[in-house]
């Protein structure tokens, strides 16, 4: 089995490559990268005019199974991931039961293997049942295949528990991902606290609720010397403190979502619950800061926070609607449209944020680069083609997205996983 990706623009930040090159894949592994590889006797994919990158990994996804199969199943979530150009996803543990033990991790991995070629990296919960009290069995979870720990959806409220989590995960070489929100300060809020909340009479979540918890986590990371990863940074305040901490060599990484670099709180004026997420959409100033943070690497990774919710769950009063939107099929085009084409970040940085950074943060040493001998995962996309998704084009069980029925510049063309190519069907 040989596959030749011909004439693509290979962007591989790990080796510093950005050139038109052929990539030969043999038996599921990268075999050669060169200027003109003979196509004799091999399956050829003509990537002329396309970008070829190491496989994209979305390190913040809610697959909802087990427990919330009405919103999404592992099979449908991974189908969306594949259609979005992702060769791997890390799934959050806020399922029912919570992924706080090996049996749940095994269940997720088995279901994933049976339904999709996309690699799944389960994230175990920090605390048992995500209750914020007792640590989950990190070693057992790691052994079963967990890639990180998080109580996502909720912050680890107790500083003591967070300290212990960092220490214990750190001693296993694992990272803790924290959803940073001071719940007291955010209490009852459903959108950003600002001009829009003042006008609409909706209770606000101040930016300070995010930065207070980030500051605490940075303090604990410095204290313990252990890595913390800050989920979905949405505020300028947050970006600023992480930038300073990185300069001071605090072991911190961070991520941002496409909706937080594409939309502002102004969208909420329609009271459309597809603009309701946590953290909420912020101001133009925050959006600019998130983009700047992605550009200079303060924010390492781009993640979707793919959060499927059933039609009827979102079709309720705004302040009663659940938080979150799906994002797997729109993330790459949005990053191209909002970041690369307006020259806010380089193409190399885009690939780093979608591929190398997640691999680095999750400790996936064989991912995020193109080198002979490694498993052949690629994401192939176009900067010129456009994406236009109707609800029926969405592979997720849930269609809760504010980005449907509109043109987005940039399109995913195909994903290669283990040497097999999966073109995105039009």
């Amino acid at each position: 089995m040989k596959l030749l990706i011909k004439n693509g623009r290979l962007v591989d930040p790990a080796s510093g490559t950005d050139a038109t090159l052929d990539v030969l894949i043999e038996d599921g592994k990268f075999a050669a990268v060169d200027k003109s590889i003979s196509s004799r006797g091999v399956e050829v994919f003509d990537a002329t005019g396309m970008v070829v990158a190491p496989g994209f990994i979305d390190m913040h996804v809610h697959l909802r199974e087990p427990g919330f199969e009405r919103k999404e199943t592992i099979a449908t979530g991974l189908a969306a991931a594949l259609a979005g150009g992702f060769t791997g996803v890390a799934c959050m543990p806020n399922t029912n039961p919570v992924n706080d033990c090996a049996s749940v991790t095994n269940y997720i991995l088995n279901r994933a293997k049976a339904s999709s070629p996309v690699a799944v990296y389960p994230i175990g919960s920090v605390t048992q049942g995500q209750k914020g009290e007792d640590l989950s069995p990190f070693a057992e979870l790691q052994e079963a295949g967990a890639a990180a720990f998080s109580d996502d959806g909720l912050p680890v409220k107790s500083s003591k528990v967070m300290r212990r989590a960092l220490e214990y995960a750190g001693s296993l070489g694992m990272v803790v991902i924290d959803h940073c929100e001071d719940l007291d300060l955010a209490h009852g809020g459903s959108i950003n606290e600002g001009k829009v909340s003042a006008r609409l009479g909706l209770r606000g979540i101040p930016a300070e609720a995010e930065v207070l918890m980030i500051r605490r986590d940075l303090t604990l990371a410095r204290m313990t010397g252990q890595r913390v990863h800050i989920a979905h940074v949405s505020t300028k305040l947050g970006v600023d403190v992480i930038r300073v901490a990185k300069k001071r060599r605090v072991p911190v990484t961070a991520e941002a979502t496409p909706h937080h670099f594409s939309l502002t709180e102004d969208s909420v004026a329609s009271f459309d619950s597809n603009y309701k997420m946590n953290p909420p959409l912020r101001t133009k100033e925050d959006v600019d800061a998130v983009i700047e943070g992605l550009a200079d690497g303060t924010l390492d990774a781009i993640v979707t926070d793919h959060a499927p919710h059933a039609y009827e769950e979102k079709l309720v009063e705004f302040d009663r609607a659940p938080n979150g939107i799906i994002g797997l099929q729109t993330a790459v085009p949005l990053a191209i449209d909002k970041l690369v084409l307006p020259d806010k970040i380089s193409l190399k940085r885009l690939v780093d944020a979608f591929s190398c950074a997640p691999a680095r943060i999750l400790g996936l040493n064989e991912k995020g680069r193109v080198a002979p001998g490694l498993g052949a995962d690629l994401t192939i996309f176009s900067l010129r083609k456009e994406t236009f998704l109707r609800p029926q084009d969405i592979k997720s069980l849930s269609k809760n997205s504010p980005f449907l029925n509109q043109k987005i510049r940039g399109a995913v063309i195909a994903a290669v996983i283990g040497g097999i190519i999966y073109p995105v069907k039009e």
Partner: protein
Amino acid sequence: MSLGKHLLGTEGLGAEEITLILDTAERMAEISARPLKKVPALRAKLVVNLFFENSTRTRSSFEIAEKRLSADTLNFSASTSSVQKGETLVDTVLNLERMMPDCYVMRHSSPGAHQLILPFTKASVVNAGDGAHEHPTQALLDAFTIRQKKGGFKGLEVLICGDIAHSRVVRSNIHLLKTMGAKVTLCSPATLMPPHMDSLGVKVLHDFDEALAGKDVVMMLRMQLERQQKGLFPSLREYYQTYGLTEERLKRASSDVIVMHPGPINRGVEIASEVADGPYSVILDQVENGVSVRMAVLYLLLGGGEDEASH
């Protein structure tokens, strides 16, 4: 000039539309003054009063307005309805829709709830209050009362004081009064004043005495005890001392000030009895005008029945 199909808020309502409603309300007031207080304007129209939140004053006012215009009314309140069995707002409307209503007058605790039902109904929708967002007929009846007493709005200094954070009345009043050319000042302790209220084009003050100086209209808001989170102010006693409208304090305002309140009033909390019952108070005029304004709104939205009559 017409009003369009719905009345969801005063934001976006033009001066001409507001004037049309107020002028129409004056004609409606004449109807209420007749010995036989009823006209057939909305005969055979079905108005559903859809109240998901308790209300006596607003609901009664709407119901009287509907009856004076001869509409058929259905009162639907959440406490006695299938909402308690878990039916969603959209499903409730889909069901009611098959009863062919011409109008929903809806109150709901969630801001924007009216937007949610629009795609599911053919009827007109009147917002009778959505959370802390808007309460347009209250602002219109306030405007009617102000125009009645002051003759107009241009350059009027209006102070709104009290629980700004939880008030739908304040937002509707800000939009309307600004459109009509009045100057609006808000006053409350910072705990009851959401940040960025000044972005609505109003002045924000925290010192009540300073805020009262020279005002032509003082609108006191109900201290909504039932919606208070604990800790927004230390005690009712302290609130009355700092933000209660007393006769003494009122002397700082313009000599022909009018005192307004959307009701129900809390005597001795946000307003002293002597002020509420005193010569500057127009609080009960507001109640009376509420019926006229709501008649006007329903009449304008529902076409007034003139079309049918001409067939």
